[in-house]
């Protein structure tokens, strides 16, 4: 179970949220020169780390705002919550 600190509403239970998957994916373009393989990778290929994962979350049962989260996929520890548009934080080895 996660207690997620929504940057707008404060700490709430995870059932109020939806995980939107990997963050920081840039849409390739312009669309008429993007190769099929690149477009396929944009749509489907995902980072799937066993460790720190940078992902988008939606406070679906609250303020309906999106935000980013650095979360560990084994311990589920939430290290940082940051705004959409901000770069991913650096998380040191062994942390």
């Amino acid at each position, binding site marked *: *179970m996660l207690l997620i600190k929504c940057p707008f509403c404060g700490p709430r239970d*995870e*059932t109020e*949220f*939806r*995980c939107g*998957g*990997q963050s920081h994916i840039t849409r390739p373009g312009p669309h008429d020169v993007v190769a*099929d*393989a690149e477009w*396929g*990778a944009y*749509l*489907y*290929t*995902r980072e*799937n*780390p*066993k460790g720190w*994962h940078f*992902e988008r979350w939606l406070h679906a049962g609250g303020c309906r705002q999106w935000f980013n989260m650095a*979360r560990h*996929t*084994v*311990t*589920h520890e939430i290290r940082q919550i940051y705004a959409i548009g901000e770069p991913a934080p650096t998380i040191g080895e062994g942390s």
Partner: protein
Amino acid sequence: MHYSAITLARNALTGHRNWGPMWKDAQPKPAYDVVIVGGGGHGLATAYYLAKNHGVKNIAVLEKAWIGGGNTGRNTTIVRSNYFLPESSAFYEFSVKLYEKLSSELNYNIMFSQRGMITLAHSRHDEETLRRSYNAMSLNGVDCEWLHPEQVFERMPLYNRGGRYPIRAGLNQPRAGSVRHDAVAWGYARAASDLGVDIIQNCEVTGFLGGDGKVTGVKTNRGEISAGKVCLSVAGHTSQIADKAGLKLPISSYALQAFVSEPVKPVFDTVVLSPATGVYLSQTDKGELVIGGALDLYPSYAQRGNFHTVEGVVAGMLEMFPAFSRLRLMRQWAGIVDVVRDSSPILGPCPVENLYLNCGFGTGGFKAIPAGGWTMAHTLATGEVHPLIKPFALDRFTTGALIDEAAAAGIAH
């Protein structure tokens, strides 16, 4: 070790101290023709069919822990082929047919109990969707029957008729059922070992030999092993291992939970799936209810699962069967499943030469073990992709020819 009345009598007379191991615990050799990474059902079945159908002699199955200890030992043991699209239907139906003969094929009782599986419709919209599924199955040549509410209640008298989820209809696949999952792993392991396959446990693959878009072997915690071909059948950890070969895949790993209740007398003789409550359950021969539900909400490699999902699954089950509210859950666990966007597996070669993938089964790999093994063995041995798995190639994520089985995958992805 093979079992018979004679071996039973002999071992009974000697105090059961001399039972031999079922398969040989092999030590790694420096080179193999085929190395299969992952000693679950798919890996062991692939090794067995490589040796049996194609006469390949020099095969190793590398397992980082013990065989059948991953998702093969963590699933809810349901076997079915009630899929929607012709490609999936052909593949899973082939698997069910192999399962039907597997006990005699392996001389090992896998306890395939074809008790049927009933998918429920609770609303008019559910009913329309289910009717579509019924038509698709009929067109695909998979036998199924449409059940009216009274026929459903006959099969499950404990169903809550006056509750929040009334029954409008049911769709039964009579040949679906449950299989003893450990027996599948052990049966394939014994049969493969008898044919000379090296099953190497506690051998974790840590990297690959080769380079320039090619693998020539694997690095393990027990030394380097060169290999003509390498096949990955590691379910939820496929991204981790493929990454070591420089391969990125369209996979996200999630935890999928299952639960077992305390054993009770026979109360439920079929398998039921309710897409609306997100719950499916069956009763084992021992009497325990085996209950499954939806995926946990976010990517995870923690094999433990989340309490909210437990709560949701139990609540859903009790809406359907209030009588089960007095049962205790004895065990709860999670396996890590490799979820792909179209809920269909990825099978066959990949851009890295000599590396083959058997992954992406997500929540439904157990039912596909014999077919996955059979078709991957064909692909590895002949170099030609087996016709049944051609549509499941990795390049469908480039061409866009997805096989969207999100609905027929049974539970929400």
